């Protein structure tokens, strides 16, 4: 994860400017709490002017001080939002920079014909449906899908990962991203997005606020905060006739100070910054979200669907053992399996050869006229036809049994037994035949990623159920599931199985997240509450999901869940803190309001503040500076600890609830000691 310091000079400057722009009532109206503060500030401005010639509302200096502090409160809140926006924008800009104005080799269509006439245009002129060509050394001008060819691509500009990746037409790795570089070969790409509508563009718009919509939780919280604000409007407005009854004149400055201190300005001022920072954290984790809501939903996820390969196990299986059949000679078996694997470029094939070499086998050479038979889904086997006419095959157990039994050969019982043992140990058996005679069986084993058990344990403590999706048979799947520590698995999974599983979980009220890349994942990605598409995936998959992971890292989902939880927690804890602060503020301001006419109330001045003016000033100053003091927390987010909901609540109540009650008592007292020097 890239880390930048919270306050970079350039960002701060930009944010400071924006703080003033955001004073515009039309903008601030979106935030009811801060809007009322702005109204109060305007009134205070008028009172300050009035007190130039008339001191019935307190001295000019005192009113001016209150006005300045209120104004600062507004600026601080605006600054919080602005700095969050600036950070998000800076992050997005650095991504966008890579794709600005690169030349594109576009293929013009003449009538119905695609000719090879290539024009060079600017990338900004590419429209959806245009086709362009990229050759070795070219920067890919925009997002698209390969329709012809294969290329190695350096995606480090967006992922930060230096190892090049292969992208090819057809299949699930056909997508290319603007700003990445072709290292070798030549591809023909069709543009999939309109200019200005790529995921990154959408993300930037979200962060910048223009298209930022409040998430459901944010709306509910805003309602609650507006309610708190209204309660204190009532408290302050009714205080006027109460005070008249008690013959206690209260200055406008005191009224407004009391009001501003009581309404939840801390959370009100930081609320949108928290939301933006959540999306920014996702972006820093190299995840592009299509909406703020998606991040929030991620925190609620109950079920996580994870593909086995790449997430739970390292890439591919490795050969770990060879078991010859009883009536086959070991040498012949070894020879056959090596021969059949020499031309096999798959990692499994290579691992077979490697294992054979490590067992002291001399690798035989394959004559040039030998014919390699590729693996297909129908035959579920691969192999080689040697020049002497011998047919060597290796493949799945039932496919090979069919093959040998069709040829009239009996499938050896001990091999069948061995197959079963391997399966139940989580391995994959590969049966080897020569001329339809069973020679033996190869055991392939999955290698579970180191550290993955701990991650699943962490998820379990968060209350998230993990489900492994694999094409393996149920026995193998069960073994790996148990070994990796996932809660459930879908074996022999077809795309519709994922979909059905998601539907079933959702029907029982659960929220499901999944990650996918292929076009056949698209329906499930769309069905899932949080669907994370890999950037390398097809356009259909990316369109169907609500997040795109630039790193193509299947374990990213775990991070996303934590980011979502952090977002909600930060809102909750700061709300608690903000409201808890009221206790101390009441004890600072209320005695100050009445002490002049009811001296007996000095008993209520438990903080022993210097004078009514200093008490009120201290409270508003504390109220103002707590906002910038909490900006780092709002931007970084409150740390999530998977210790169970009740323990987490206890912890946060202690820190932000009890802390929220105690800290202002101390803070106001200290500020009062300082302020008292000037009054």
């Amino acid at each position, binding site marked *: 994860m890239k880390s930048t310091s919270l306050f970079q000079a350039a960002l701060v400057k930009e944010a400071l400017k924006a703080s003033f722009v955001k004073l515009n009532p039309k903008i601030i109206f979106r935030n009811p709490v801060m809007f009322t503060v702005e109204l109060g500030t305007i009134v205070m401005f008028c009172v300050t002017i009035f007190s130039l010639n008339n001191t019935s509302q307190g001295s000019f200096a005192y009113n001016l001080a209150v006005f300045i502090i209120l104004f600062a409160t507004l600026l601080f809140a605006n600054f919080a939002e602005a700095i969050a926006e600036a950070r998000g924008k800076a992050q997005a800009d650095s991504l966008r920079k890579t794709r600005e104005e690169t030349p594109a080799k576009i293929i013009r269509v003449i009538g119905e014909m695609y000719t090879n006439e290539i024009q060079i245009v600017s990338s900004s002129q590419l429209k959806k449906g245009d086709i362009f060509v990229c050759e070795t050394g070219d920067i890919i001008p925009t997002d698209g899908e390969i329709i012809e060819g294969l290329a190695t691509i350096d995606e480090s500009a967006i992922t930060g990962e230096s190892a090049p990746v292969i992208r090819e037409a057809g299949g699930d790795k056909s997508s290319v991203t603007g700003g990445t570089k072709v290292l070798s070969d030549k591809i023909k790409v069709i543009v999939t997005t309109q200019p200005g509508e790529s995921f990154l563009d959408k993300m930037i718009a979200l962060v910048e606020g223009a298209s930022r919509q409040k998430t*459901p*939780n944010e709306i*509910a*919280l805003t*309602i*609650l905060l*507006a*309610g*708190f604000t*209204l*309660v204190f409007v*009532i*408290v302050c*407005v*009714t*205080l*006027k*006739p*109460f*005070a*008249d*009854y*008690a013959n*206690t004149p209260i200055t406008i400055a005191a009224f407004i100070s009391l009001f501003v201190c009581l309404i939840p300005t801390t959370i009100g001022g930081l609320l949108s910054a928290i939301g933006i920072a959540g999306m920014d954290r996702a972006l820093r984790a190299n995840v592009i979200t299509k909406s703020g809501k998606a991040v*929030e939903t991620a*925190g*609620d996820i*109950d079920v996580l669907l994870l593909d086995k390969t790449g997430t739970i196990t390292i890439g591919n299986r490795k050969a770990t053992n060879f078991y010859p059949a009883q009536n086959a000679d070991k040498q012949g078996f070894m020879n056959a399996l090596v021969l059949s694997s020499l031309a096999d470029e798959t990692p499994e094939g290579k691992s077979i050869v490697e294992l054979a070499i490590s067992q002291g086998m001399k690798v035989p050479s394959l004559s040039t006229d030998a014919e390699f038979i590729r693996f297909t889904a129908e035959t579920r086997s691969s192999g080689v036809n040697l020049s002497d006419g011998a047919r060597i095959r290796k493949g799945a157990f039932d496919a090979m049994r069919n093959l040998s039994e069709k040829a009239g050969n009996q499938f050896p019982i001990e091999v069948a037994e061995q197959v079963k043992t391997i399966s139940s140990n989580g391995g994959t058996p590969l049966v080897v035949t020569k001329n339809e005679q069973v020679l033996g069986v190869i055991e392939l084993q999955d290698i579970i990623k180191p550290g993955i058990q701990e991650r699943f344990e962490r998820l*379990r403590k*968060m*209350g*998230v159920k993990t489900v492994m999706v694999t094409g393996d048979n149920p026995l193998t799947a069960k073994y790996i599931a148990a070994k990796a520590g996932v809660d459930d698995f879908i074996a022999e999974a077809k795309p519709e199985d994922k979909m059905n599983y998601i539907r079933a979980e959702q029907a*029982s*009220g*659960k929220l499901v997240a999944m990650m996918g890349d292929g076009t056949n994942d698209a329906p499930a990605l769309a069905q899932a509450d949080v669907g994370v598409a890999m950037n390398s995936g097809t356009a259909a998959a990316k369109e169907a999901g609500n997040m795109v992971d630039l790193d193509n890292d299947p374990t990213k989902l775990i991070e996303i869940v934590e980011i979502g939880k*952090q977002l*909600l*927690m930060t809102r*909750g*804890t700061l*709300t*608690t803190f903000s*409201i*808890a602060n*009221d*206790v101390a503020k009441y004890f600072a301001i209320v005695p100050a309001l*009445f002490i002049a006419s009811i001296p*007996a*109330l*000095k*008993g*209520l001045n438990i903080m022993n503040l210097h004078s009514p003016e200093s008490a009120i000033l201290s409270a508003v100053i504390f109220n103002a500076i707590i906002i910038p003091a909490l900006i780092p927390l709002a931007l970084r987010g409150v740390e*999530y600890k998977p210790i169970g*909901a*009740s323990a*987490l*609540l206890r912890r*946060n*109540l202690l820190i932000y*609830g009890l802390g929220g009650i105690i800290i202002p008592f101390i803070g106001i007292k200290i500020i009062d000691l300082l302020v008292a020097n000037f009054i």
Partner: protein
Amino acid sequence: MNTEILGIILMFTLTVLLAIPLGRYIAKVYSGESTFLDPIFNPLEKHFFRISGINIRQEMTWKQHLIALLTINFLWFFWAMFILMNQGWLPWNPDKNPSMSADLAFNTAISFVANTNLQHYSGETGMSYLGQIVCLTFFQFISAGAGMAICVVVFNAMKERTSEKLGNFYNYFLKSCTRILLPLSLIVATIIVFNGTPMNIEGKASFISMQAGDTVQLSRGPAAAMVAIKQLGTNGGGFFGVNSAHPLENPNYLTNIVENVSIILIPIAMVFALGFYLKRKRLSLMIFGVMTLGFLLFLLPSVYLEMKGNTAISSMGISQQLGSMEGKEVRFGSAASAYWGITTTVTSNGSVNAMHDSFTPLTGMFALLGMMVNAFYGGVGVGFLNFYIFIIIAVFISGLMVGRTPEFMGKKIEAREMKIATIIALLHPLLILAGTALSSYVFVVHPNIGWLNNPSFHGFSEMLYEYTSSAANNGSGFEGLGDNTLWWNITCGIIMILSRFLPIIGPVAIAGILANKKYIPESAGTLKTDTSTFGLMVFAVIMILAALSFFPALTLGPISEFFTIQ
């Protein structure tokens, strides 16, 4: 230990011990299981339901429940207005008491429909026996029954399922009256009748007092029945003007125990009933714990202060071994009076056995706070509804704090529910503070309007108390306030009606909406609401939201008075 303190410990322990089996019984009644009264009432009820065209198996949605509740309340209001404004010529009026004026009848009708029983009249001179029986006593049953019935609707909504069918309102309503309120009232009434409370329809008795040989009129009437239900149904409207401080309403320490236990018995039993009904005992223990914590927080200092005596009197060098006895009955003493004062205010009962006006300032404040919170036990049925709102707000904030979209009993709390909860939470301070503010304004403009016997802080407390009592549907008076005037009758009437029905509509709407949402089973990430941690959260929300909004007002009333007479 002091016998007076032992007395109140006995009362509280007795209440809780009785509330547990009663809660189980209440849960049985609402679950439709057979109870010992079925043989008597079932055949009778069958006919009533048939005549009214009610099929009790037909379940209602939350909206239908509210419509049923509001409709019958609307009709009751006119019934009450008619009786009260015509009782002068109607039968059963041996003392020839007059009919009520329109504004007083308006206030009284709302007051009894709304389970408040704020009394701007005095029973001896203001009511006929017909009015006492067919209007007031009758309303004390049905308003309490309606509150309990609507509470069961919320219980139903909390079940682990998705449904919009929440039982039949008329069934719950009738069962509340006949299976719960009626038998309990019979027991209580029997006890107090044998201790001297009258139950007859004869007019005033006269006797010649020892004091200068004057002939004195003594009011009597069908009091015992009314006293029983006024306590059990958190009504609080006494038969006689001075309520349970009257020797005939509350003759001795034993009746005082019985009546005081009755005040908080059903409110506590309803909390236990929730646990039995939903089979979520831990949840009901959490709620009971939070309520009891708040109750004790108000009770203990009050008992201490009343037993300590009035500092203003101490400073004159007068010994107060019995505590502060101004406005208290010698047969109850200061501790039992303070206990009654707090129980009657936290539960929205409002009957009194001592003059609240004469409590020491801070006891007066705790009585006020009990009504301002109005959810530490609270009124029968409706107390839980108020508490439910606080739960929703606490769930929302603490749900966020643990990083999950807030959910309560497996249902997600979203913007719509928060909107309703916020409005209802806002309403209570709004009504109390706005009412008091208007009255303060009027008083400042017309200082000679003659409302207040004690101007200054105490007078402010009197006005604040009157509106708080109205808004909490409590009905007790601080007294010392000239309240039978057009201004007070109308403003209190409006506040009572708003604060009775809106805080019913709100929680029922929330519960109904939640009931219809998808049920989400608990997972390790779900915030458990039946833990002490969450209880603490609810308590904090109540204290900060409900109590703190009144801090400035309380400062100008009881707190200033307290510091001034120190």
